[in-house]
């Protein structure tokens, strides 16, 4: 009895500790398993995200140019060619050859036999080509790479595909003259401020002598910086007759929609990419008092050609700007 009591005293609390350890071990095992599962799940997601990111980076590194090459044989064929201009190899898996005029699409599936083009390689033929007739309309050739990037080019190559009018305008000025819009107007005999047949006018490349006329021409603002061009009153059209050795000029005027010339000039604004008809009628800078200023008498020019210069002046945005357009001529009859 005494021994039992001693044993019992010695063992007190051991069962509780063992139970607590077992319980803790069970919960710990469950918790650990859960956390390991969560950790592995995040690892899986992270791996998938890294792989996708890697694929997108590789795709963005692909740079290539596409063109076409005609292959003679039993029948003429058009084959895609690829220049790899990027830093990594590309693998072409599909070719589209499209007739943009009809929308007809011809395809070459190379997924089972893809063509790899290494960096720096040029004019590498891709696929076997599709039937093509000489002189056919241009074809759009599109290739698809294994990484999913699409590149395209035209055959035959289009000239100056990347140059815009605005870029060309830098070469000769910010404003373009619409040559075929060059016209003249006669005056209403009953109202010296009214232009007849406005705004249509008459083609001015052959102009009449012996009557007072005004000129009109359309100009387009192609400023690459997209500023508004404002024409001031110094803008004029002048003509020089090389045989007679004399000149006449017409200042810019404002004309309302019904063809009436305004007595005082208000600056004309032309927004970027806007085309506007500009009328030249006045003998004086800044105002218009009638169609017969002394210098506009061209009867001695009959049967002679003259050179036309359009002098534009004003501001481009807030910057002063002027441009002379000397490309037109007139024959006076």
């Amino acid at each position, binding site marked *: 009895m005494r021994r039992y009591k001693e044993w019992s005293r010695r063992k007190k609390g051991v069962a509780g500790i063992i139970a607590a350890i077992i319980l803790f071990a069970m919960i710990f095992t469950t918790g650990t398993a859960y956390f390991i599962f969560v950790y592995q799940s995040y690892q899986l997601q992270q791996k*998938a*995200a890294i792989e996708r990111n890697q694929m997108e980076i590789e795709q963005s590194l692909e740079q290539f140019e596409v063109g076409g090459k005609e292959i003679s044989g039993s029948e003429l064929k058009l084959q895609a060619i690829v220049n790899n201009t990027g830093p990594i190899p590309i693998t072409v898996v599909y070719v589209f050859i499209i007739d943009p005029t009809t929308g007809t*699409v011809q395809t070459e599936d190379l997924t089972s036999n893809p063509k790899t083009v290494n960096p720096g390689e040029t004019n590498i033929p891709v696929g076997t080509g599709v039937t093509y007739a000489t002189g056919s309309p241009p074809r759009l050739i599109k290739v698809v790479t294994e990484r999913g990037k699409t590149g395209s080019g035209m055959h035959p190559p289009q000239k100056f595909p990347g140059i815009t009018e605005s870029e060309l305008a830098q070469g000769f000025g910010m404003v373009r003259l619409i040559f075929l819009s060059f016209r003249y107007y006669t005056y209403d005999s009953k109202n010296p401020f009214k232009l007849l047949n406005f705004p249509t006018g008459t083609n001015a490349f052959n102009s009449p002598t012996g009557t007072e006329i005004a000129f009109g021409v359309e100009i387009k603002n192609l400023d690459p910086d997209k500023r508004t061009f404002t024409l001031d009153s110094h803008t004029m059209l002048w003509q020089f007759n090389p045989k007679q050795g004399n000149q006449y000029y017409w200042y810019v005027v404002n004309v309302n929609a019904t063809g009436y010339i305004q007595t005082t000039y208000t600056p004309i604004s032309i927004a970027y990419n806007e085309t506007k008809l500009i009328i030249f009628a006045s003998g004086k800078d800044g105002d218009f008092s009638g169609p017969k200023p002394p210098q506009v008498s061209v009867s001695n020019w009959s049967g002679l050609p003259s050179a036309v210069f359009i002098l534009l002046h004003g501001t481009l945005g807030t910057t002063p700007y002027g441009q002379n357009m000397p490309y037109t001529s007139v024959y006076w009859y």
Partner: protein
Amino acid sequence: MVNRIRKGVSPVIATTIIIAITLVVGFASWSFVNSGASAASGVIGQSTASNVNYLRERFVITNVALDYTNNRITVWFYNNGAINTKIVEIYTGTDPNMLNLIPLTPLSLPIKEMRSITISYSISSGNTYYIKAIGEFGNVVLYYQKA
């Protein structure tokens, strides 16, 4: 003699009861934690699978042919991802904010393969048509072309 025997039974019963209570409470606690962990694991597992599939699914629209004579649109898809997928929905129209759902049977798109689908749609020359495709795992691709 009788008393001595009775004195020995009580600790055994008490110990048995304590063990029983401990086991019951222990298993109840474990079950509670385990069921919670299982439920959470299930949600995380589904979410992970969904995210991983979404990340591995990639496809592009490589070409579109707008046939305004026969009022048909042919769309070419290429699977550049790391998992087989399906095109489950296609929308089209001229306003990218109001596209029309086109009824279709899902188009299987195995890895590294090109597949095309032709749908009927009224085409007017000069209009720009937008095509939006949705993959099985939720990726969306938009393409537009002028007729």
